[in-house]
């Protein structure tokens, strides 16, 4: 997974004029892909982009994409930071399930399920437990030096069991309008989940980019040895990103369970870690750590959610869904690959005068 660091391919154009600067922007290609997907939908379903007001809130496919995409955005958000440190967090799916289960269990057994107090304490419990999960992951990775993938695998496996233990293997339904607000409610005509996700993204980017946190994380991910010698407290940072990741996943878990007013220990957040990692990678953050892009991650998550919605709207039969998804993923990553684009443009443009006659090349090579 080591990117070749001695070739110029990875370099960002420093000063490219006009269109070059635009296409050179790291968010350009993910954004282009998202736009293309949306336009493709419009071509097939004409009112795909139409948004109207219904029951006092906005209604339409775009709103659905945002609303269902919100949990994925959150999980990917935390995942981005973890990946930036060269880590990976497989336990987010389980954390999603645990958070939903804890909150719903708390509300379902409370005297007054609808009261804001109950909901607040439910949220507090869920986030608190998530923080503990994050601490445990962080401890294993930062203090014991366990490889992140195994460290978080432990909680990925056990966590889902814990979620089921909390729900006793059942699906816990709750009826609490206050709780419903988190994932299914509307505020200022917009889904509350979307606003919440947007707020968390904004806070995270502010905290990482306005403080030195982002740079230090990138440094630890980019070169751990050098970071230690520069005096960065890597252990603290690592623990922090795993906690952030778990808490983000927990908020996502609250959203998901709130949206359907029930907690499903077994299925909530199943495989969301893969989608989240995919979103991060599509967004331009490398799994090898270092530079990360929160904006890219949000775009990546939206691409994935749009793709799902597209599949439902197009009526792609379930048997072919995966093939379709595979093709889109391939196209997305090819489009994003500078090497691919370079090849394409080389082919399209008349080849630069090649001083070496093609045939002469091999002959001369000495054994």
């Amino acid at each position, binding site marked *: 997974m080591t990117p070749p660091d001695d070739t110029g391919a990875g370099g960002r154009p420093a000063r490219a004029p006009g269109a070059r600067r635009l296409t050179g922007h790291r968010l350009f290609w993910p954004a282009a892909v998202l736009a293309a997907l949306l336009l493709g939908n419009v071509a097939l379903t004409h009112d795909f982009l139409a948004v109207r007001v219904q029951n006092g809130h906005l209604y339409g496919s775009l709103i659905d994409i945002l609303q269902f995409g919100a949990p994925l955005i959150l999980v990917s958000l935390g995942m981005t930071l973890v990946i930036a440190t060269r880590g990976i967090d497989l336990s987010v799916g389980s954390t999603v399930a645990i958070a939903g289960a804890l909150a719903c269990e708390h509300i379902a057994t409370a005297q007054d399920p609808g009261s804001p107090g109950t909901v607040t304490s439910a949220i507090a419990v869920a986030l608190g437990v998530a923080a503990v999960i994050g601490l445990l992951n962080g401890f294993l990775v930062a203090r014991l*030096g*366990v*490889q992140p993938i*195994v460290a978080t695998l*432990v909680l990925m496996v056990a966590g*889902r069991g814990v979620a089921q233990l909390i729900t006793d*293997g059942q699906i816990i339904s709750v009826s609490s309008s206050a709780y419903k607000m988190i994932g299914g409610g509307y505020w200022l005509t917009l889904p509350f989940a979307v606003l919440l996700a947007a707020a968390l993204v904004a806070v995270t980017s502010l905290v990482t980019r306005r403080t030195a946190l982002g740079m230090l994380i990138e440094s630890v991910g980019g070169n*751990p*040895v050098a970071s230690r010698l520069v005096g960065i407290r890597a252990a603290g940072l690592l623990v922090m990103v795993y906690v952030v990741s778990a808490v983000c996943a927990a908020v996502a878990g609250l959203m998901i369970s709130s949206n359907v007013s029930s907690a499903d220990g077994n299925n909530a957040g199943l495989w969301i870690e893969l989608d989240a990692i995919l979103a991060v990678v599509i967004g331009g953050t490398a799994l090898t750590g270092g530079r990360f892009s929160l904006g890219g991650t949000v775009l990546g998550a939206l691409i994935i959610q749009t793709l799902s919605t597209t599949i439902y709207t197009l009526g792609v039969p379930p048997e072919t869904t995966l093939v379709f998804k595979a093709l889109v*993923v391939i196209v997305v990553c090819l489009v994003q690959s500078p090497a691919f684009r370079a090849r394409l443009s080389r082919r399209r443009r008349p080849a630069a005068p090649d001083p070496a006659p093609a045939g002469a090349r091999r002959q001369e090579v000495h054994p």
Partner: protein
Amino acid sequence: MSTTLSSLTGPLQRFSVRHAAHVPLMVTTALLIAMFSIGSLQYEGFFSAQVLLNVLIDNGFLLVVAIGMTFVVLTGGIDLSVGSVVALSTMLTAWLVERNGVPLALAVPLVLLVGAAGGALMGWVIHTFEIQPFIVTLAGMFLARGLCYMISTESISLTDPTTARIAQTRVLLPGGLFVSPAVVIALVVLALAFVVLHHTRFGRTVYALGGNESSARLMGLPVGRTKIAVYAVSGLCSALGGLLLTFYMLSGYALHAVGMELDAIAAAVIGGTLLTGGSGFVLGTALGVTVLGLIQTVISFQGTLSSWWTRIVIGGLLFVFILLQRLFGGARTAE
């Protein structure tokens, strides 16, 4: 001028430097033995060689798949497609043999070819377009599973009596013990992989690639070829694992081996292979597979756990295992 470090690095130290990488292996083995002993004390019928052999019988296909994964992980890559390729191989075999009457002797090489070619294709894309292996193999994972569904959403049984006979053949060992032919195949693959990784130029290039890819390129090693080959090996191993699974289950099914990629990665990593590449042993992977299998066996023997406690205990045992592994073999802490 003659450098002087030899005066300092005494034989003992040299030994420890040279064999530092083996320590985790030994620790893992010791922990495995401990786990087996505890199981034997705890459960009736556990202390028997057949229990261990059953771990192999039930995980032979996983071992083969994990070996392929080890190649990829050693170069610093990852292959998420293995589980789906396993499923595709079972499906393809069953479909060819059952629905199309292709003789088994033809179907088997065909399936192996499909697996290897698929892997090579992914490797080619990864190398040529410099795309992260994670996405490319994830796409491969979707594609292979999707192809399974396109063949059929139902499971296809292999009803051919020869196939059944092969599947039910038991290789008898002294002492009334037995293993399946799949175990023999898996062990042969293991031995082959060991030789390839440690005693061929290709294998050493795999390690070099994992050590530092750009250096490997500057050293004039065939980076592209090796990368493609590694994914081809992984694809081939997955296809072979799929064939073993086909015989194990006597059926092809699109939902076989869901999540096996994680098991394979976990086995390799528990066995001491670094996910960042360049360090690890294929024998460690075999130990890793055994660890995972033994944990499952212990839980089956326990037999009173509810579904959720099953998961919690699997996670807990894994946790204890890696914790002990770190404590006793923690020479290579990532600082």
